[in-house]
């Protein structure tokens, strides 16, 4: 038997078409339950809400706030990139371009990963399983250490 935590990964990736349809149509089609609502009982994404049972609402709220915290972390990483570029730190154009690119990629991982983490945690809550391990944390910590080290070396040597 497949270990429980593997079941989620085997499911197909988020349907982009469906996401776009939801993003463009929700407030037109379903004003009362669409935007920010419960979709009239058809809650999206189905692969989260279609399984398990409703967890303690406090856990759902906490999961949502964690998602938002990761989103703001992603925004902060993007802002760091903007700051480096705007202040021309480090002075060398190529080093700076690489550093800013890494920061933007890290910011994208943080925000994209925020949603993936939210979905996995919500599903784990619904199925009364342990929460998924936080893959984002070591990744971002490592990335930031590298960016910081390169930035310091570049600033000191120029």
């Amino acid at each position, binding site marked *: 038997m497949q270990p429980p935590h593997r079941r989620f990964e085997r499911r197909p990736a988020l349907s982009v078409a469906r*996401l776009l349809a*939801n*993003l463009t149509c*929700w407030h037109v089609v379903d004003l009362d339950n*669409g*935007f*920010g*609502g*419960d*979709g009239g*009982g058809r*809650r*999206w*994404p189905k692969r*989260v*809400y279609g399984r398990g049972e*409703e967890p303690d*609402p*406090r856990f*759902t*709220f*906490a999961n*949502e*706030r964690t*998602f*938002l*915290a990761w*989103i*703001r972390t*992603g*925004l902060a990483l*993007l*802002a760091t*990139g*903007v700051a480096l*570029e*705007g202040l021309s730190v480090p002075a060398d154009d190529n080093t700076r*371009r690489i550093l*800013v*690119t890494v920061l*933007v*990629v890290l*910011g*994208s991982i943080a*925000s*994209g990963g*925020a*949603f993936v983490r*939210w*979905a996995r945690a*919500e599903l784990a809550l619904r199925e009364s399983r342990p929460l998924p391990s936080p893959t984002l944390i070591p990744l971002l910590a490592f990335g930031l250490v590298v960016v910081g080290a390169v930035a310091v070396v570049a600033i000191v040597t120029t």
Partner: protein
Amino acid sequence: METPFDPGLQNERTALAWTRTGLALLVAVLLASRITVGELGVVTVIFTVITLPLAGIVIVAAGRRYRISHRALESATPLPDARLPAAVTVLVLSLAAIELIYLYAR
């Protein structure tokens, strides 16, 4: 007067988290537009026209989501779903995209 659902004020704290995320998004969109418009021109205008209203909608939807959640808690119906979180994710990714475009266009 309606009382909060739980002593931990989960819904209220979550609504505040949504609001500050929405504000951060609004500021980020405005800054990104201001910084990139000189270099990217029309691309920035398209970006701003799409993302600025979306960021505003996130703030409005934060309050809406609070009320829907409140009703859901009182009546034991399902809480709001993940479309607003998905929209916010797409918004941040589009900010990342315009930052990269700007970085390699100059």
